[in-house]
């Protein structure tokens, strides 16, 4: 019996360590050491010469390989990540029961990373941009179609998830208690300065930047009426969400049935790092089982703002203007999941507290050990794709006579971009992760 308890405690504590790889990765990125950060992400994604088996690291590695200009390796990494996403979607509930049980004893960090819907949309968007950059228009089209389908599925997904959360509350053993705990937690969150009601998603959980880029791709590279329709429909959606003047102009161009797009330069600026989770610990006075319980509480992940690398870019007298806010997308989706996370955390705290009391009843020393294990294992799941951007910005300028574009970066040297000598519509895609890393500039030309 004692062996079993010790094994359980070990299992519980196993989910509590913060991996060294994550610390190294963050340190390398912050200091601008791209090769070291990329290498640690690639290594953490899976064994060498084998398919990656860690989804979150595969996403980070795919992003940084892309930032390093290694688009083929980036796409391959994202392909593996997509395959892991599929495994996550179809994971057999029975097969994952053991993991779920362990997560109820410890925390959600013991479970494999389950991707957010915005992760899935961004994955296909990045792959489409990789193919576009390499001039592989056939595969770019496939990835845009995938990105579009993922956006369609997003609204369905959240509709189902909200219904499921409602059912979970009503089916919980102590539904009344859970409802009261939820109300109590909301007040505690507000006291801690966390206002969940402010985390509003874009309508339909759409990522406006992904929709805009989808529309722009088909505006630039469309073949025939069906593609023109794709461009029009996506740019109308993007304009509805962003009200960006340039998106309006692109939408009007897509609405015109005829006429070739004039040569010009679109500058899309993918800026900074996205909103991230921080742990908020709350001691809940909800159980009141007995005075024998030494510790009870919950740990919730709450969203904190992302960080821009630069406020904007300048091109001559023009500044890039906000197109879409990745933080809004992330927070909005998280808001929808928040009640589910809260319910699970409350149920978990209940189960742990009951176990602690039972241990205490059989042996006070075991009860104390149980309390320590509960305190240590009460940890929020803070995992997320950290190299997603804070926001997307957009500007358009006429095609320079010199075929050279000068990008002004506040507090940084100007970047001179050599454009194709044959003038045509061109997307200059700028990615700046932070001020320590040089921005990456890619030229995505129309066919």
């Amino acid at each position, binding site marked *: 019996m004692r062996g079993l308890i010790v094994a359980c405690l070990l299992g519980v504590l196993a989910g509590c360590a913060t991996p060294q790889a994550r610390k190294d990765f963050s340190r390398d990125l912050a200091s601008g050491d791209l090769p070291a950060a990329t290498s640690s992400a690639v290594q953490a994604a899976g064994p060498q010469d084998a398919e990656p088996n860690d989804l979150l690291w595969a996403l980070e590695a795919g992003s940084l390989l892309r930032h390093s200009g290694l688009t083929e390796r980036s796409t391959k990494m994202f392909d593996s990540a997509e395959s892991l996403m*599929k495994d996550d*979607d*179809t994971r057999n509930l029975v097969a994952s029961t053991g993991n779920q049980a362990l997560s109820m004893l410890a925390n959600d960090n013991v479970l494999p990373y389950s991707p957010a819907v915005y992760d899935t949309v961004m994955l296909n968007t990045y792959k489409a941009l990789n193919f576009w950059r390499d001039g592989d228009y*056939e*595969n770019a*089209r*496939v990835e845009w*179609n*995938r990105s579009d*389908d*993922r956006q*369609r*599925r997003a609204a*369905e997904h959240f509709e*189902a998830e909200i219904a499921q959360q409602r059912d979970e509350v009503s089916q919980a053993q102590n539904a009344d208690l859970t409802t009261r705990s939820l109300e109590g937690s909301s007040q505690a969150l507000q006291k801690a300065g966390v206002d969940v009601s402010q985390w509003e998603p874009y309508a339909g959980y759409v990522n406006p930047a992904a929709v805009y880029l989808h529309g722009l791709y088909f505006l630039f590279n469309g*073949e025939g009426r*069906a593609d023109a329709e794709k461009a029009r429909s996506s740019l109308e959606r993007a304009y509805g969400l962003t009200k960006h003047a340039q998106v309006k102009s692109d939408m009007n161009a897509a609405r015109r049935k005829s006429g070739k797009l004039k040569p010009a330069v679109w500058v899309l600026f993918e800026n900074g790092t996205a909103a991230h989770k921080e742990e908020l610990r709350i001691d809940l006075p909800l159980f009141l089982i007995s005075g024998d319980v030494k510790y009870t509480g919950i740990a919730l992940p709450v969203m904190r703002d992302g960080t821009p690398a630069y406020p904007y870019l300048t091109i001559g007298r023009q500044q890039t203007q906000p197109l879409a806010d990745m933080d809004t997308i992330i927070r909005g989706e998280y808001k929808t999941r928040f009640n589910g996370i809260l319910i699970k955390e409350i149920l978990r705290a209940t189960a742990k507290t009951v176990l602690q009391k039972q241990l205490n009843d059989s042996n006070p020393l075991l009860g104390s050990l149980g309390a320590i294990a509960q305190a240590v294992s009460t940890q929020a799941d803070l995992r997320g794709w950290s190299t997603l951007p804070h926001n997307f910005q957009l500007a358009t300028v006429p095609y320079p006579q010199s075929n050279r574009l000068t990008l002004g970066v506040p507090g940084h040297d100007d970047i001179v971009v050599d454009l194709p000598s044959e003038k045509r519509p061109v997307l200059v895609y700028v990615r700046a992760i932070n001020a320590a890393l040089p921005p990456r500039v890619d030229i995505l030309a129309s066919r």
Partner: protein
Amino acid sequence: MSLKFSATAIALAISLAGCAPMTQYVDPKTDNVAVMGLDYKDFETAASKMVNDMLDSPLMVHPKAAQGGRFVVAMSNITNDTAQRIDTDQLVKKIRVSLLNSGRFVVTTAVGLNGPEDAMTAKSRALKGSKMMNQATVKKNGRVVAPDFSLSGKIIQRNNRVDGRTQQVDYYFQLTLTNLDNGLAYWEGEEAIIKRGDNRTVSW
């Protein structure tokens, strides 16, 4: 104890070995396994139905068919507008084989949308004047046959939710044979392949 452990380990190893799927041959005629994406059976079905339809068209009969006249077809672009990373050449190859086997069409490899599929037709003419070659065997200019028709097309995918657990994926194979003499589509065909399945994940 160690004997018991070894026996258990062997039994476990055997039982795990029994769990691994065995490699086996698949008979395409009796294979009932379906995937939400496109597989060889879909290409086979679409290609054979569309070629049969093409061969049934009265406009697709060469005016000198009785004397062995056959239309020459050039392959144009087949756009993959699905979410599946597929090789459209796989579909095209099945169609080409069926067209050739019908005895009514031949396919040119000397002309293609992005240059010839087989550059050897042109390159072999470059041997003219080569001291190494028997000049009587060098292929002459003016003998390569220009195409009569161009085959182009598109594969489209439409996804729809049936209910919370089921999704429907419609694939449309669309092909057009354009008469290169006048630019008119002499034959058009569409073959739909509809699949219903698990909605927990994406269709690719």
